[in-house]
C-alpha cells in the first residue's frame, strides 16, 4: 500500500492493520519523505474505521485448509488450544512436515488467501476529465502534483491513482488502453518498478513514462512541461 497525503496516511494505516490481522500476512505501507515533510491543511479527519482482528473464540486447527485460504486465528491465552506458528512448512496444527501432499495443500491455501484479498481490495481511484486524452498512472505523492496541474491546462487530463499496489488490480489500465487513451506511467525513481509490476501482473507494457530521479519530488511544472510535448 502507498500513501499520498495526510488523510490517506491516517486511513490506510488502519486498513493495513485490519488486513494484516484478518489475512494473517505482513503488510507494507509505503510513505515518502515528500509526504512526511509536507504540511497539509485538512478540515477534519474521517471517522476512525472499525477494527477487524479476524479472531475466532475457540479454534482447533490453527492452519486449517479453507476454501478462501484464511485459517481461524486466536490469540494465545490460558485454557485455549495451543499451536505452533512455524516458519518451516507445516500441517494444519503447525507441526513441521516434509510430506509432498501436505506441502502443496498448505502452499495453495496461502495462494488462495491472496486471491480472496485481491477480490476485496478497491479499484484504483480515477481523478480528472471524464473523456481524457492522457491519463497518468501512479502512486504516492505524484497524485498531488498531477491534480494540481489539472486546472492549469486545457488538456483533458486524467490520473489513475494506486493506493493498493499488491495484489494489483489492473483492469482499469487495460480498459483505458482499449479506449485509445494515452497512458503515461509517472514514477519518482529511475528503474520504474511500478511499471515492471504492471508488466508482470497484467502482461501490459506502458511505453510512455515520466520519471524523475534527481533527488527531488515532482513539481507542477514537470507535469505541464511533459504534456506540452
Amino acid at each position, binding site marked *: 500500500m502507498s500513501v499520498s497525503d495526510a488523510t490517506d496516511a491516517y486511513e490506510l494505516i488502519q486498513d493495513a492493520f485490519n488486513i494484516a490481522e484478518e489475512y494473517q500476512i505482513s503488510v507494507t505501507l509505503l510513505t515518502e519523505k515528500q509526504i512526511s515533510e509536507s504540511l497539509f491543511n485538512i478540515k477534519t479527519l474521517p471517522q*476512525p474505521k472499525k477494527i477487524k482482528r479476524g479472531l475466532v473464540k475457540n479454534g482447533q486447527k490453527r492452519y486449517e485448509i479453507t476454501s478462501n485460504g484464511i485459517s481461524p486465528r486466536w490469540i494465545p*491465552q490460558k485454557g485455549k488450544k*495451543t*499451536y505452533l506458528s512455524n516458519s518451516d512448512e507445516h500441517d494444519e496444527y503447525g507441526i513441521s512436515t516434509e510430506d509432498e501432499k501436505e506441502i502443496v495443500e498448505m502452499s495453495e491455501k496461502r495462494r488462495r488467501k491472496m486471491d480472496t484479498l485481491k477480490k476485496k481490495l478497491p479499484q484504483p481511484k480515477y481523478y480528472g476529465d471524464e473523456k481524457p486524452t492522457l491519463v497518468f498512472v501512479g502512486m504516492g505523492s505524484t497524485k498531488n502534483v498531477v491534480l494540481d496541474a489539472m486546472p492549469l491546462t486545457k488538456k483533458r487530463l486524467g490520473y489513475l491513482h494506486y493506493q493498493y499496489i499488491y495484489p494489483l488490480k489492473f483492469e482499469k489500465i487495460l480498459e483505458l488502453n482499449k479506449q485509445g487513451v494515452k497512458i503515461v506511467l509517472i514514477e519518482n525513481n529511475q528503474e520504474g518498478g511500478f511499471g515492471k509490476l504492471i508488466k508482470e501482473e497484467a502482461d501490459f507494457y506502458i511505453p510512455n513514462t515520466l520519471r524523475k530521479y534527481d533527488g527531488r519530488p515532482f513539481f507542477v511544472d514537470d507535469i505541464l512541461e511533459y504534456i506540452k510535448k
Partner: protein
Amino acid sequence: MKIDITDYNTNVTPTWCPGCGNFNIHLALKKALVELKKSPSEVVFSFDIGCNGNGGDKIDGFRVKGLHGRAIPLAVGAHLANRKMSVIASIGDGGCLHEGIDHLIHAVRSNYDITLLIHNNQNFALTTGQITSTTIEGKEMYAFPKGKTEGNINIGELVLSLEPSFYARGYSGDIVQLTEIIKQGVKHKGFSVIEIMQLCPTYNKESNHEFFNGRISKIEKNSDIKKARSYVSNKNKLYTGIIYCNSKIKDYYSKLENRKGKKTELVNEVRNYSIKNILAD
C-alpha cells in the same frame, strides 16, 4: 487441575541424534514448568532455527518458530502484549552470538521479564557443524580444515559486562540442577539469561561428558558481580549455577510511565484508534 509432565508431550518423534543434549534440556524445561504449576497454555515458547529450534514441535504450549537469530525479539513482543503468559526463548550459540547478537545485548539492557535458554553446543549444528564464536580456537571444522582462525566470545563475560539482572549456567548432562536453574530463571522478574552447555556428540566430540565432568564446579546463588566475573573467566573450571542475580534492577514494563496502574494487558486493549494524544491542540 493437576499438571503432569506428560501434558507437555506431543506425538512428534524427535529427530535429534542419539545422545544429543537437547533431549535432556527439554526434559529439564518440562520438569521446571510442571514444578512451577504452569500448564502448556500459560507458556509461550519462542524457538530459533537450528537443532535447538527443532524442539518446537516436541513440547506443548503456544510456540513460535520464527527466523534464525530472532527468537529474542519475538519473545519480547509476546511478553509485552500479555504479561500473564510466561515467555521462554530458546536459541543456539550460533543464532544468539552471530545472526542475533544485537538482540541479546539490547534485551539484557532492557531487562524484559522473559527467560532465555542459550543451547551452547559450540557450533552451527543443524547446518552440519560450522564454527561459531564459542567453538574451541584452532578446532578443525567444516569449511575450516586447518582449524578455526578467529578468537572466541565468552558468553558469561559478554552478558556480565552488560549489567544483567540474571545470568546462570547449566549443563545438559545435569537435569536436576538445570531444572532448578530454569525454575529460578522463570521466577526471576527480569531478563534471565541461562547458558546451557549442551552435548553435541555429532559435531563436538571433544566437549563430552568426561570433559565437562572433570571441569564443572557447582556454586550457590551469587549476587556479587566481581565474584561472578571471576567465575566465568576461570580458565580451568566451568562454574554452573546461578552465577549472578540482581533483583534490584527493575524490569522494562514496570518502568513504563504510561502503563502505571493499568490492570489490563495490551493484547486486550486493541479497541479503537485515537490519535488525540499525539496531536497538539
